[in-house]
């Protein structure tokens, strides 16, 4: 069980926990946070590979994570703004009731 595999397992676990949160919880904010967790899991992978995998390119993994963090922040901000707008519209945040946008 090399450290790399350990990290990958950790990120997989974190990813699935994020997925469970996103799927199980009905509150929109928590779903968003679940997705944030999944994003973090991805970042975790990047750093793991940067650290343990003898890749040639110097710090692309690190830079990628930096950009990922920034974008995730932007995404979260807009997501939460949407949640607030949704709440104003629907007076509660239960996601299963926000089903107007459907086929």
């Amino acid at each position, binding site marked *: 069980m090399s450290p790399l595999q350990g990290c990958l397992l950790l990120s997989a676990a974190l990813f699935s926990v994020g997925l469970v949160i996103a*799927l199980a919880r*009905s509150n929109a904010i928590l779903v968003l946070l679940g997705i944030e967790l999944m994003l973090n899991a991805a970042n975790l992978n990047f750093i793991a590979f940067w650290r343990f995998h003898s890749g040639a390119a110097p710090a692309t993994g690190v830079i990628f994570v930096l950009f990922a963090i920034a974008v995730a922040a932007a995404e979260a901000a807009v997501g939460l703004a949407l949640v607030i707008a949704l709440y104003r519209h629907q007076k509660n945040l239960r996601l299963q009731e926000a*089903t107007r946008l459907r*086929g």
Partner: protein
Amino acid sequence: MQLSATHLWMIPALPLLAAAIGSLTPRGGRKLAAGAAIAAMIGAFVLSCGALVTALAQPAVHASANFTWFALGNEVVRVGWLLDPLTAFMAVMVTFVGTLIFIFSLGYMKEDRNFTRFFCFLSLFAAAMLGLLVANSLLLLFVCWELVGLASYLLIGFWFHKPAAAAAAKKAFLTTRIGDLGLLLGLLWLYHVRGSLLCYDGGAGVLEQGSLTALAGTTVAGGFALSTAIGLLIFCGAIGKSGQFPLHVWLPDAMEGPTPVSALIHAATMVAAGVFLVARVYPLMLADQALASVPVHALTVVAGIGAITALLGAAIAVAQNDIKRVLAFSTVSQLGYMMLALGVGSWVAAIFHLLMHAFFKALLFLGAGSVIHAAHHEQDVRRLGGLGRRMKATFATFAVGTMALAGVPFLFSGFWSKEAVLHAAHAWPVSSLPLLVGLAAVVLTAFYMTRLITGIFLGAPRTDAAAEAHENSAVMTGPLLILAACAIGLGFIGTPAWPWLQSNLGGIVVEPESIWEAPGLMLLSIGLVVTGLGAGWAVYGRRRNVNASSVDPLAQAAPGLFAVLAARLGFDEFYAATFGRLNTWVAALADGLDRRVWDSLVSLLARAGEFSGVLNREADEDILNRGFDRTSATVRGVGQTYSRAQAGETHGYLRTVALAFVVFALVLLLGGVR
């Protein structure tokens, strides 16, 4: 002031521009339209003088400037401008007379509501006439020929609300159209043979020696020379346009138009176009003179037609009561004279007579116009009379015109030009018939002119309209005075003693000779003129206590002949009887055919279409639709099932994504992808 051939196009362009301005000005823009028209005519006149100066510099040369009008595949149609003494003299005459008539019509048409439209049509006519003169290509000439016909139709039918005027305009247009058909056939045949319609094209032109010998050389069905056939066909156009024997019926009726129109078109210019055309293609006409085997020479036909028309016109003119009708028939007879002169071989005499006739006939018509204008549109001679004292200027100028027309010796231009024609006829070797006819026509002309002048101006006014007549304003009497001066003065440019016109026109220097060399013919003609005048004065001069309804002395003398002549020898009725009924018969036939034959065919087709439509609907209904409905139903079903998957529940989406991911990953893993 030189105007070379290449700039000739400016002469017709100015009146065309004036016509365009006239057409665009609203009814109120009277001053603008009239001003533009008159300015254009003055400009054209100045340019024509320039052209005349250039032409007279080398009278024998036909200066042409050609260019490609349009190319149709590899067929290139070339047109161009021609400058020679004939064009120049005609252009000066047309522009000078036109300007005077335009000024005259300023007064004449003042009360008319469509004043601007009148001047627009006048400018259009002037442009077309000048275009016809300067054209070097017969095609361009034909185009302007048609435009002139159109202009005459528009001007004759100017007061279209009068049914008579509308009918007259249609009649004029149709009869000239028949003549033009002959002209068109001639041109097409010529184009077919020669491949070009340019008269003078640096040797390759139609009227140049190369093509003339070729045309004369070939003979056609009936033994005619090709040039004779083409020449006669072109002459048909001239017959129609100049109102010669068979197609003269439209000219008297054309008097329905306003008098300046009659003066400009049916006295001076348009009718002269036919004579100009024959003069233009004269080399073609002369081509068959040398051939002996030819059954008839073109010019002989021309002379015959000319003689008949001259005698016919003069005779009918005697029995007419309407001033303008008398002058119209007088024009017909004078044109017969010109054709006669062309026929007997002297186109110079014909053009000389044409130029002189244009001036004094325009004078006579304007005089008549002034009389009509003063007498509140009263045109019947029997209802006028005694206007001499009231309209002194008009009476004086009308008298000058009459004497010029009659050919009073020495002083008046009419005498010299008629003399020239008679000399040519006298010298014609073929037969002396034209000479006799000419002399008879001289007597008749003198007679009916005195009848006319005494009827209008002498004696007492027979109606109150005539009584109230008074002299017109300067704008109408001015042109009369100028034209009278020309009628007198211009004669001297063509006298045998000083043949300036003849030598310049023909390009060959004519030896001046004293008029007393062969005085016989001249003295004879003078005698005939005097007898004519005397007879006229005798019959009509001293009639007293005559009122509007009193019978004409001639009618009393020869009631039958007078009635026939008054009815214009019944040509209208004859044509109506023959061609009119033919036309109606053919129309009825076509209508019947159309109604019964074609109609049934079309309805047959319609029913067939209907039947196939019905067949189509049935088939479509049960075969196609049912199948289509079933398939769309299935598609909607499938769509619904999928849309249920798209239930808008975000959790559902995420769950399906996750499970899909798992499935694919499993496939990858188990599939052994390393």
